[in-house]
C-alpha cells in the first residue's frame, strides 16, 4: 500500500508558527496561549479549526517551557559614566 504523503501546507504552516513563537518573550507566548485557550472554550469553533488551534497552542506551550528551562541568567555591568555594557567585574573596589 503506498505511503500517505504529509500535507505540505499544514507542515509549513506549523513551521511558520514555530518560527514566530521562537521570537516571543515568555509573557508574549503566555498571552498568545491564553487567547487560543479562550477560543477553544468557545463551542461555536468548527472542529476543523479545533485541530489547528490545538497545534498552535502546543507550540506556544513549548516556547514557554523552553524559556523556563533556561538556567543561566545574563548579567552584565554598565559603566556608570558612559552607560556602556561590559562583562560583570566583581573585582572593582568602591
Amino acid at each position, binding site marked *: 500500500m503506498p505511503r500517505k504523503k504529509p500535507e505540505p501546507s499544514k507542515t509549513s504552516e506549523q513551521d511558520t508558527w514555530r518560527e514566530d513563537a521562537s521570537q516571543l518573550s515568555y509573557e508574549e507566548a503566555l498571552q498568545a496561549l491564553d487567547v487560543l485557550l479562550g477560543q477553544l472554550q468557545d463551542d461555536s469553533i468548527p472542529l476543523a479549526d479545533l485541530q489547528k488551534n490545538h497545534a498552535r497552542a502546543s507550540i506556544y*506551550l513549548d516556547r514557554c517551557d523552553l524559556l523556563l528551562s533556561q538556567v543561566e541568567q545574563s548579567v552584565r555591568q554598565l559603566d556608570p559614566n558612559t552607560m556602556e555594557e561590559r562583562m560583570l567585574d566583581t573585582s572593582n573596589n568602591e
Partner: protein
Amino acid sequence: MSAESLPTYSVRELNNAIGVLLERGFAPRFVIQATASRPQVKKGHLWLTLSDGDASITAVAWASKLKQLDFVPADGDGVTVIGRLNFWSARASLAVQVLDMRPSLTTVLRRFETVKAQLLEEGVIDPGRRRKLPAYPKRLAVLTSVPSSALADMLRTAQERWPLSELLVVPIPVQGEVAPIICGVLSRLAEQHHQLRLDAIVLARGGGSREDLMVFDDADVCRILASFPLPVVTGLGHEDDLTVADLVADHRAATPTAAMVTLMPSKESAQQTISQRRTRLSEYKRWRLEQASSRLKERHLQLHTFRPAVALQRRRNQWEQRQQLLLALSPQRWLHRGFAMLHTANGQPVQSIDDICLNEQVHIRLKDGVVQAITKTIQANESSNSQASL
C-alpha cells in the same frame, strides 16, 4: 606649703610636661558624642567646635583624613567622633584630632523629616503616582555597590527566581557625600533607558546602620527617582530602615534581596502554570471531540428510530383533523339545521335589513335548493329606528 617644695618649670618645660602627661595618661583613642558648630575648611583642613551645651573643644580633621570621611557635618549637626588628642606644646593648645566622624542618629532622622516635609509639599512624595511593576521583566538595572554582599545576594535570588531576566549591574557609591554622583548616574540612565531596553530599576544598599543610609534622604536624589521614566524598586538597609528614597519609589522592599523577590516572578510557579495550561489544552480538545461524538450518536439514534409508515400515518392524522375542522366550519351544516342564506340578485349576501330594499329580488338558499322572492315589507327589530313598508 612653701615655694621651695613645689615643682618649678619654665614655660617650655611646663608645656612639655603637660604634653607628656597627656600622651602617657590619656586614652590614645576615644569617642565623643557632640554637636558640631562652625565647621570651616582652612588650607584643606576641616576645623570645627564640638560642644555638648556645657563645654566645648576644638576639633580638626586633617586634609588627608578629610578626604576619607564619609560625612562632613553642617553647623548644628549631631556627630559621633572617634578621635585622639592633639597637644601643641609651644602654645599649650589642645584639639581633638578627628579619626572618624559620623552623623548621630538624631541628625539623620532630623534630615529625613525635613526632606520628607519638603518633598511632600512639592508633591514629589505621592503614593497615588506609584506605578505597577512589570509582571515579567525582560531587563533590569541594579544600582548598588560593586562588589558587595548585597549584590551577591541579589544575583543569587534573581538566578533562582527568574533567570529569563537580563540584569545590568550599575556600580554606585552608597555611603557618604555621594549624592551628586548618584544623581548623575540616575540622570544618564533615565536618558538612555530606551536604548538599554530596561523595564525597571532597583536601588539597593545592604546592611549598615541608619546613618549609613543618609545619602538616600538627599532631596535631589529623591526628585530624580520620583521622576524616573521607569518603575523604581528600593531595597535599602534593613526592614526598619525607612529613607525618603523609599517614599518616592514605586515599591519599597525591606532589603535588597526582597527587592529582587518583588520584581522577579517565581519560575516554579510559572512552570506549574504552564503544566496546568497543558492539561487544560488536552482536556478542551478531548471535551470538544466527545461533544461532537455525542451529537453524532444522537443523530444516529434518531435515524434508527425513524419509521416512514409511522411518519406517514402521523401526517394523515393531521390532515384528517384539518378536514374535520373544515367541515365543522362549513355553512352547509347550518343549512341542514334549517337555517337559510340570503343573497341579492347580484350575489351580495344579505345580513342586515340595510343590505336590501323594498321590491328588490332576493335569493333564499335552503338545504335543498334556492327560492327567488321579492321583498314586500322590511320590519326592523324594536331596538332599531328604521322601518319601511309598501
